[in-house]
């Protein structure tokens, strides 16, 4: 089941739907509604937790002179996403009626069901609007989290936050509506279960656009050589990865969008098992590959490998067998190990490896769906159209922001660190830094 189905339940809270009942006598039985709502609530709080995961991962991978700023960006972007998705995003993404059919939803803010909803007024074949909004909001915020890592250590706070407003209020909801809102891509046969492309490659494309407009950190590429700038705290980075791994059970599991029948809850189980397997095999692939390639294991690559495994399986966490999930995830891990240095060769400076993890592995995962379902064409069209749209719009927005207010700190400020120059507050004021 793809997210497409859900729009039936969104036409109106109290409206009767024409869809066939999903479970045996679901019409009157409130259990499926209750269970699916619960799935969204539990899945939603797990995906919420991913915001903390991104914050810790990024705080661990930047140098300590930029940690406060990175933390500030992360908590702020999540907060902004929460507001923008309510203000315009949710209804833009799941329009009752499209403004431009299949391409652009409508503009209105979100209202929930009344308190104490009667069963007769509920979409008994789906879930509560409140839980659905809560769950979907977290995906929107995730997209923005991806961007902050790539652009770390040099983008100014406020231009970044303004970009977040646009990304979470407009860019993400519009492209996501093409598929999950029942737009043209869904009719074209594109398949992306929980968002390898709609969320992850999209976030990666926005990050890529930003990285190009912004340029590399000063001192990163000197005389044709890559200068490593090691992350300040790998314990935090590892914690962040574990948090993301945990949250991903909600991300993929919740995207089943139903939990009230034997079939659905069994499918959710399958998704959990596959998601875990892909993360594990992504990590192991990076573990082995860095040992072979470099002679030493690189923990940051193992962390990225686990995340790449998770991104890869996100487009189709249900259909594969555990062996299939293992293969999909492992290829994700391999992709990361090769594309991290590749980006460096192109002098695209991605501080935390978000583009390899979310963009490249996201594309791989979405392509791999073709092994299980429809043909290659819808997958390629979906990937290209979404990535192109997000990249181009993001690129233009970054250019405009740059022209209007400048998006990058001065070199002097960058050397001093954004914490000193932008915020005047150190994350670890007592630890002397080297």
């Amino acid at each position: 089941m793809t997210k497409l189905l859900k729009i039936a339940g969104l036409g109106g809270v109290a409206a009767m739907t024409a869809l066939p009942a999903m479970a045996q006598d679901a019409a009157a039985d409130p259990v499926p509604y209750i269970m699916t709502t619960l799935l969204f609530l539990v899945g939603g709080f797990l995906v919420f937790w991913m915001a903390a995961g991104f914050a810790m991962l990024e705080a661990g991978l930047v140098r300590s002179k930029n940690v406060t700023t990175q933390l500030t960006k992360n908590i702020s972007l999540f907060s902004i996403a929460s507001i923008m998705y309510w203000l315009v995003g949710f209804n833009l993404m799941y329009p009752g009626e499209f403004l431009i059919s299949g391409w652009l939803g409508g503009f209105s803010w979100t209202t929930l069901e009344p308190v104490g909803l009667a069963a007769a007024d509920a979409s008994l074949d789906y879930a509560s609007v409140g839980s659905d909004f809560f769950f979907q909001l977290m995906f929107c915020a995730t997209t923005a989290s991806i961007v902050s890592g790539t652009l770390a250590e040099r983008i100014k706070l406020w231009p970044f936050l303004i970009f977040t407003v646009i990304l979470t209020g407009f860019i993400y909801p519009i492209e996501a509506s093409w598929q999950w809102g029942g737009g043209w891509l869904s009719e074209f046969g594109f398949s992306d279960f929980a968002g390898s492309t709609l969320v992850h490659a999209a976030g990666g494309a926005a990050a890529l656009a930003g990285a190009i407009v912004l340029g590399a950190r000063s001192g990163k590429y000197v005389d044709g050589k890559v200068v490593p700038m090691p992350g300040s705290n790998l314990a935090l980075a590892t914690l962040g990865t574990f948090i993301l791994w945990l949250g991903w059970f909600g991300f993929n599991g919740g995207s089943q969008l139903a939990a009230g029948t034997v079939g659905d809850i069994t499918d959710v189980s399958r998704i959990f098992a596959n998601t875990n397997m892909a993360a594990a095999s992504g990590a192991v692939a990076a573990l082995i590959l860095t040992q072979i390639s470099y002679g030493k294991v690189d923990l940051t690559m193992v962390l990225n490998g686990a995340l790449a495994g998770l991104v890869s399986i996100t487009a189709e966490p249900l259909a594969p067998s555990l062996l299939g999930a293992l293969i999909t995830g492992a290829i994700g891990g391999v992709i990361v190990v090769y594309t991290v240095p590749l980006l460096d060769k192109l002098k695209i400076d991605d501080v935390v490896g978000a583009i390899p993890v979310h963009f490249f592995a996201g594309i791989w995962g979405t392509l791999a769906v073709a092994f299980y379902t429809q043909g290659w064409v819808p997958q390629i069209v979906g990937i290209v159209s979404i990535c192109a749209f997000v990249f181009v719009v993001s690129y233009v927005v970054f250019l405009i922001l740059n022209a209007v207010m400048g998006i990058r700190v001065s070199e002097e400020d960058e050397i001093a660190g954004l914490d000193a120059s932008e915020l005047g507050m150190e994350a670890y004021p007592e630890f002397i830094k080297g």
Partner: protein
Amino acid sequence: MKLIIAVIKPFKLEEVREALTSIGIQGLMVSEVKGYGRQAGHTEIYRGAEYVVNFVPKVKLELVVADGDVEKALETISSTAKTGKIGDGKVFVLDVEQAMRVRTGETGDEAI
């Protein structure tokens, strides 16, 4: 032999070390210090309370060089560490009476 103590801006460390290496200086030690000087004194706000930041992060280099290398080293450090902005730092020279390499027991200029 002389001990050269240089206090410079942290981001200049790598450049200065390379410059010193290129003139044949083979050893030194680096420590993090907090510097107080003319550069200090900007105001920050923490949870609504203003305060003056008196110390700025600096890096201290200590190197013992043969008498004949002092001028060269001084010049290399000052030209490389210089940005022309306040806070570039200082270099001091002190006399060293003895030096010894632990590994070999060598003393004097041999030791450095």
